[in-house]
């Protein structure tokens, strides 16, 4: 007890206390505890569109990222010439901050950006990719930027997972008649399950928090939930509603993580 006391103190100070005060703030009002903050949050015209945008982004982005990351990891493992160089190149976005990534892609998608320059140079009409009334292209821009930025996290986790699988299993599958897709489906993916689970939880929680990329690319035109938190806190100066939003994001993240754990439970480790 004495030995873990310092960590308990730190956890309480740096984690427990802010969380409790955040929860209190979310339910706080001038006349004591209230749910008015949540009502205000729900009535805001941006709220439901931000929820819709966030969910759409997650549903479209995560499968793309996992397929890409898995393909990249399998390519690395096949050890083509220069595979270690590819590894570092593919891992670079991991080190780029999301705001910087957003700004980089802004230079591509903005009205006088690289993409339109290319279009103009081949004689095509430039497009306002990030315009308010062009929802599909705006979504695609945010999606591409986020896929570029955050796939490397999944990639690194999958590479680590692949490295921990002994080659014997795949060799055995090959000897017993399994081709590439059979090996992938019946052997590699099931053995990769713990890594995929970790990556999925991490990636989904982080995707709920997607913010800076969309802000840099579209400003308020493509609202996301955490972006709304930011707007309530800094723009509208209402810390209570901002806390309520943050609480919603936390609750959804927790439910998702538990859901993944349950859904992807590994039965082979069950007790005898």
């Amino acid at each position: 007890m004495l030995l873990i006391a310092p960590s308990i103190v730190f956890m309480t100070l740096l984690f427990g206390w802010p969380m409790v005060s955040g929860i209190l703030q979310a339910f706080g009002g001038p006349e004591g505890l209230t749910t008015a903050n949540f009502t205000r949050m729900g009535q805001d015209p941006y709220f439901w569109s931000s929820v819709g945008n966030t969910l759409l982004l997650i549903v479209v982005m995560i499968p793309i990222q996992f397929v890409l990351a898995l393909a990249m990891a399998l390519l690395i493992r096949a050890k083509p010439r220069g595979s270690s160089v590819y590894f570092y190149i593919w891992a670079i976005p991991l080190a780029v901050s999301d705001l910087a990534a957003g700004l980089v892609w802004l230079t591509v998608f903005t009205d006088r950006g690289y993409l339109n320059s290319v279009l103009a140079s081949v004689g095509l009409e430039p497009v306002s990719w990030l315009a308010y009334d062009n929802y599909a292209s705006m979504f695609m821009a945010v999606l591409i930027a986020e896929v570029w930025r955050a796939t490397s996290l999944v990639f690194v986790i999958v590479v680590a997972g692949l490295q921990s699988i002994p080659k014997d299993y795949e060799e055995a599958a090959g000897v017993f008649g399994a081709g590439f897709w059979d090996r992938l489906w019946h052997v590699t993916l099931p053995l990769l399950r713990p890594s995929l689970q970790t990556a999925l939880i991490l990636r989904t929680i982080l995707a709920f928090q997607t913010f800076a990329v969309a802000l840099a690319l579209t400003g308020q035109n493509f609202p996301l939930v955490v972006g709304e938190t930011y707007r309530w806190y800094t723009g509208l100066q209402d810390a209570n509603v901002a806390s309520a939003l943050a609480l919603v994001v936390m609750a959804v993240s927790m439910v998702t993580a538990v859901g993944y754990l349950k859904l992807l439970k590994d039965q082979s480790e069950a007790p005898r």
Partner: protein
Amino acid sequence: MADISIKGLKKTYPGSTELATNNVSLDVAEGEFMVLLGPSGCGKTTLLRMVAGLDFPDEGSISIGGRDVTYLPPQDRNLSMVFQSYAVFPHRKVRTNIAFGLVMKKVPRDELEKKVAWAADLLQLTPYLDRYPAQLSGGQRQRVAVARAIVMDADVLLMDEPLSNLDALLRLDFRAELKKIVQQLGSTTLYVTHDQVEAMSLSDRVAVMKKGQIAQLGHPITVYEEPADRFVGGFIGSPPMNFLEGRVTQQGALEVAGQSTKAPEFLAHSAARSGGLPVMVGIRAENIYLEDRGTPGTLDATVEVVEPLGHATLLTVDLGGQTIKVQVASTVRVSPGEKVGLRFDQSAIRFFDTETQLGLTA
């Protein structure tokens, strides 16, 4: 069932200058149990992996049942294999592990179930069919690996040190069981081991490998009794064959440790022509008999260490400065320091060239 024909296989692993297999040729007849035996790093596993299609040779060819498979991937070779690490899939139950190859071959369901039941019964795995490998002991996992291999009815059964991860008692049991199963199946089997007892007890023929080459190929008893070179004699047998420096004189006498006996005819001839011939004398511990010091035809020696083994007693004996092992019946009473006479079984003595280390025969 099919025969395996290996011709002139050469393989160098990337980053190594040494040949892992150096021009190996080997024919395994249909239904034969062939053991590849050798110390670690001799290329036996490399050879097996090339037959399996897990590695590809730089040169040479492999054909199975007359079909050239040299560069085919493993899934197109119609073989099955037992891995040293077992490689039993941890995420599949015993039942689906055994059925894996059959599912890949798209065998009809009722036939598949019949075969799994048959293999599980043969390997006493029936009570464990619905367990995961993590819930099994090492010996049971090993059985799953064997069951998965034998349900395949493959042309060729490959085994890579399948017993090396079992404890001594289990290994002894399973060795006999494995022999029985393979005999029942009658499949062409290529079996890799570094354990000479396994090789002797299981094989129809054994190929002893050394530095990427086959040092000797033959019936296990032949290899044991007539090793082709000093390496084979020293590798097979426990204790290994004794080697003594000796010399055949021009007069036809064999001098060992400063004492002389009669040399065999063929050596005496060549010694007479060349004016004396240095030889390496090889003799197994069980072919040396203990007699009283001074008995005619014996060599004077001194016992240094006595090791009772239960079924026999192993003596370490000093013979004119050279140390040899002698195995005597456990009833023989002898103590360290005792001066004794040694009689060599003349028919069991082997001679080796001192330079090439190769066996000398008539």
